[in-house]
């Protein structure tokens, strides 16, 4: 099956710093989503981004489908950005395959 790898696995930042999270996938996909899982376990949709670039406030994402990767940018990080970030790709009918996740800790 398709492999979805994320890097780095763990990231510690000072508040105000910027970061880039990467998602690599091993096969062509129908779409790609980024999620943030907060400390209470709730998964929040960040971006639905099969290709191109999108921005939402301090977050932006870019997917280059032909090269099988996606990037999530977090600028001016805040403590509330802490949690685990997952990318998930749709491989087959609306079935999401999740990546391994990046655990982010933003310290004040």
């Amino acid at each position, binding site marked *: 099956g398709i492999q979805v790898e994320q890097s780095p696995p763990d990231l510690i930042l000072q508040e105000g710093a910027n970061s880039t999270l990467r998602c690599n996938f091993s096969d062509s996909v*129908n779409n790609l989503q980024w999620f943030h899982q907060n400390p*209470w*376990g709730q998964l929040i949709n960040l971006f*639905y981004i099969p290709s191109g670039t999108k921005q939402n406030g301090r977050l932006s994402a870019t997917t280059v489908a032909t090269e099988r990767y996606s990037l999530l940018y977090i600028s001016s990080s805040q403590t509330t950005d802490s949690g685990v970030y*997952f990318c998930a790709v749709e491989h087959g009918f609306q*079935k*999401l395959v999740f*990546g391994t996740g990046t655990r982010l800790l933003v310290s004040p």
Partner: protein
Amino acid sequence: SQTIHQWPATLVQPVGSPLSLECTVEGTSNPNLYWYRQAAGRGLQLLFYSVGIGQISSEVPQNLSASRPQDRQFILSSKKLLLSDSGFYLCAWSGPLLSRTDTQYFGPGTRLTVL
């Protein structure tokens, strides 16, 4: 707007006991419904998905089963729990087959501990 509910929020069960987790969606019709499991500190694994009442697809062989008795209700069950069934169970929904809505939306989850 659409909302998704799961209960219970947390559950502690002995090995060998039965299980029933419920998920309901409001504000949409004919959704696709999904059950995922997340082991501690790891990614999510798709367990079951359903495109309509009584239609269940299983992704991995396991000790669990799923049912969809109503359009917006999805139930995860087990007759006898194993220690390995512990984890965080998440229900999700997405638009129906002919919809252009391709995103999935997740419920708050049920944290299951089997002792």
